[in-house]
């Protein structure tokens, strides 16, 4: 059954200076589903991901055309505060990037800025976020220790916990396991599966098997265009478009 879309892009074009990185992207991201974006390097998938919470605002000489609707509202309207958008639409990056602070403070940094002061609330938030990121049992006795002492896989789960602490609706993941070993990767994938109960997840991945394993929907991008978008099962067993088939079967010149 189809869920309501939480994010919709309508005829989105995106430019880095004179270079057009995305052309006419129209797609719905369903609520509480995992959508994977795949395609060769430079196809625009990460650009699109960053568009969805206005991360590209931070890059000079970029320009967006079209609409990105989050719960029906265009997030590129002038009166929309990108910081508010990023609270609702969190992001996890390719390389784990914890703050050089304690595990506890990594989680509480943003909530404190957002005005949560009471120790009980912050403690509860730390426990809750770390549990959701399936990291609690491993770090509950060392919350004061520097996040930099954790393993790569633990750091990445900490970054996910940090994103969850702001209670977002959507989690954007930009190749979240490409720097991790297979076991940590499996843990993150398992986590994605659990998180979709409460969150909408959009994941960019170079690992096609990962897209097949974790997502319900897959979009294939090539040269800035959305070539095919549909149920992951269909894309990986019987895609409609030859270019998609060539890419996922490894026939790509």
């Amino acid at each position: 059954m189809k869920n309501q879309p939480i994010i919709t892009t309508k005829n989105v074009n995106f430019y880095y200076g004179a270079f057009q990185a995305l052309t006419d992207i129209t797609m719905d991201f369903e609520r509480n589903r995992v959508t994977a974006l795949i395609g060769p390097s430079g196809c625009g998938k990460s650009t699109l991901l960053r568009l969805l919470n206005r991360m590209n605002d931070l890059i000079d000489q970029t320009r967006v055309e079209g609409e990105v609707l989050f719960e029906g509202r265009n997030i590129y309207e002038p009166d929309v505060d990108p910081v508010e958008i990023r609270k609702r639409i969190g992001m996890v990056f390719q390389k784990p990037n914890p703050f050089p602070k304690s595990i506890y403070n990594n989680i509480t940094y943003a909530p404190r800025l957002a005005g949560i002061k009471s120790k009980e609330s912050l403690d509860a938030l730390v426990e809750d976020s770390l549990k959701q990121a399936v990291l609690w049992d491993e770090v509950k006795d060392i919350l004061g220790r520097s996040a930099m002492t954790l393993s790569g896989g633990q750091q990445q789960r900490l970054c996910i916990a940090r994103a969850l602490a702001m209670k977002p609706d959507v989690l954007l993941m930009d190749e979240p396991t490409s720097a991790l070993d297979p076991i940590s990767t499996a843990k993150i994938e398992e986590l994605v599966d659990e998180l979709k109960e409460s969150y909408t997840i959009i994941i960019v991945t170079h690992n096609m098997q990962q897209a097949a394993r974790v997502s319900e929907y897959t979009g294939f991008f090539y040269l800035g265009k959305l070539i095919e978008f549909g149920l992951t099962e269909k894309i990986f067993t019987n895609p409609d478009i030859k270019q998609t088939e060539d890419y996922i079967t490894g026939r790509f010149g």
Partner: protein
Amino acid sequence: MEELRHTSREYEKELQEIRDGLLYLGAKAEKALEMVMQALVGRDANLARQIISADDEIDRLDIDLEEKCIRILALRQPAAIDLRFITTAIKITGHLERIGDMVVNMAEKVIILNDFPQLKPYIDLPRMGEISREMIRNSLDAMVHQDAKLAVKVCEEDAVMDQLNEQIFRELVTFMLEDPVKIQVCLYIMQISKSLERIADHAEGIADMVVYMVTGRIIRHQSVQAKDT
């Protein structure tokens, strides 16, 4: 349809080996069928014995192909057309191997039938032999050329084979009613007819899989699927 090559040449080679292997196995099965029909019509027990001992090679080829397919599934994680090809190949090799077994059954009956006087000249059985050989050949051609239309045509041919089998059945029943002494011979011939009809079923099974490989649609058990939707 023009196919791009895989970036991995080794993978490309592995898939080609399976394609070639299926054609080789198909040619073997078809040849065995041709020979057993010769042995039947020519009452040639020696030829029938040769066919029985040659079946070992068909079995070996079947195992070899299936192992190659499983290896690709494990090591290459094929997707889309490659996935559909490999799953199709596993089933096709099974069908071809079973065709080999049917031919062996027929060859055994040919040897026994030589101990009895000929009931009547064979007309419909050689026709069934021809049709089923053509079905095997066309189903494999359809696989090589990714031709779903040709595959559907093979499936339609199966009805002719069913009809011929029933016609032979009725004819043999008449013989048996006329003269109980002929019952034994009639039963052996009936088993040969049944084997040919089963061979056509396997050819249809191959063709079904080719339709799946090309279109992604599973067309077998249409009646069940109609109920589900």
